[in-house]
């Protein structure tokens, strides 16, 4: 196709050029809001995602839960996670759509060594550009939410694209479009935050005193947010991280360690050079040779 659709970038993995100045492309930030309190776990989002993205997820087996597939895979960008939570005599079935959170400060992008394999558009979407992906799985280590999966077929990383191909033409992501109860909402981040506020008021009126918005500051906020009835305990929802942030290990690895290491190598090289210039080579003298010959003669004799 001659027409290439493109989105402006805010960040680009393993890039040696600085991002364009803020304001150059003052795109509106988008966000997907997942209202867990409205979610009926019907998996329409999963089906729509599989269909739109032409994913061929193999047919598995059941493990005695409603989680199918049981985990994210390179061909399942989103899965529903079902958690049965008992408090007192009451039961809650907490159902959460899991998938890429599109962090504002994406750990995957930070970890990625392949230039342009992970990009963040100015609208906030974090996308994997497959042709640049080298399959190193550093993104897996970078991600605080355990999202990217590496394909055993083409050895590339895959995850939710927030349907960047739909968003670029003004369509909502396939999951949000499909969601029967509009538990998945899509729009500008500002609108989604405002919508969430209304939902939280409704939930509080129904006795969920700790209802709130999950937009974790540890990763700079996310472009996929949750309305939770128990925002005080995100981990109730099949292990949603209570306070996600890019691991300090990854911070060290992809931060300080890089310049320090190169500097150390450079220093070692320069030190050698200077030493050689200053002190010169360590040569065997003729006297040494004579001493050696003498010894050989003595022993040999």
């Amino acid at each position, binding site marked *: 196709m001659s027409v290439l659709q493109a989105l402006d970038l805010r960040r680009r993995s393993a890039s040696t050029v600085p991002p364009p100045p803020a304001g150059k492309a003052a795109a509106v930030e988008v966000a997907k809001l997942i209202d867990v309190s409205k979610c009926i776990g019907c998996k329409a989002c999963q089906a729509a995602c599989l269909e739109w993205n032409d994913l061929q997820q193999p047919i598995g087996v059941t493990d005695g839960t409603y989680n199918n597939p049981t985990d994210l895979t390179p061909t399942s960008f989103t899965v529903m996670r079902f958690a049965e939570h008992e408090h007192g005599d009451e039961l809650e079935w907490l159902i959460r759509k899991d998938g890429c959170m599109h962090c504002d400060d994406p750990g995957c992008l930070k970890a990625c060594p392949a230039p342009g394999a992970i990009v963040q558009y100015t609208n906030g979407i974090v996308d994997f550009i497959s042709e640049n992906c080298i399959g190193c799985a550093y993104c897996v280590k970078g991600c605080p939410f355990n999202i990217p999966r590496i394909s055993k077929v083409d050895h590339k990383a895959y995850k939710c694209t927030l349907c960047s191909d739909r968003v670029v033409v003004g369509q909502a992501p396939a999951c949000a479009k499909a969601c029967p109860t509009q538990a998945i909402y899509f729009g500008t981040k500002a609108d989604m935050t405002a919508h969430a506020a209304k939902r939280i008021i409704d939930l509080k009126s129904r006795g969920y005193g700790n209802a709130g918005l999950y937009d974790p500051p540890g990763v700079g906020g996310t472009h996929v947010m949750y309305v939770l009835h128990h925002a005080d305990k995100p981990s109730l929802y099949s292990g949603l991280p209570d306070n996600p942030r890019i*691991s300090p290990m990854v911070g060290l690895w992809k931060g300080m*360690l890089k310049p320090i290491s190169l500097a150390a190598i450079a220093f*070692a090289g320069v030190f050698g050079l200077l*030493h*050689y210039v200053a002190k010169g080579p360590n040569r065997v003298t003729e006297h040494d*040779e004579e001493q050696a*010959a003498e010894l050989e003669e003595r022993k040999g004799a």
Partner: protein
Amino acid sequence: MTVEAKPVSRYTTAARINHWITAVSLILLALSGLALFHPSLFFLTGLFGGGQLTRALHPWIGVVLAVSFLGLFIRFFSLNFWKREDTIWMKNLGKVINNEEEGLPELGKYNAGQKLVFWGQSILILLLFCSGIVLWDTYFADITTIDQKRLAAVAHALCAIAAILIWIVHVYAAIWVKGTLRAMTRGSVTGGWAWKHHRKWFRQEVGKP
């Protein structure tokens, strides 16, 4: 005309081949590893046929290195035990660096610096191998947790940098101390070199039938 001492055999052909396999794989590992370590060195993946191939080859080269280095280790570990003279040598490292090693105790086949290189690389390669396995997602993705992988990534990077630094010392020493390189190319050193740097070893070698 002074008397020329006969060359002294230092490394067998097998040992030299073993060394060079190790050397080449280490260099390739450093190049491919650095390519994936720092974006400004990503261009080095071009040497390996691109990012995907670099990612795929690096761990296999690592396996070659590990096996090869194991050979070296078995060959040389007994010669690398620490001796009293090594401590004295280390205390006089300044003199050594200033090309003033006269008056230091006579040394066996390896000086303290070489021994440190040996042990350093032995430990680092072991660590690199283990952390490398953890990071080798193609085959071993499921045996560790992501947190363990993160730790492994940092450890792998740190060890690799340390190994590269040691390698620089090792190479520089070979360049700086003239007459060293031929030990690994031709397998022998001159008698004078042996007298000067490893006199105790030289005395033993000369004494052999």
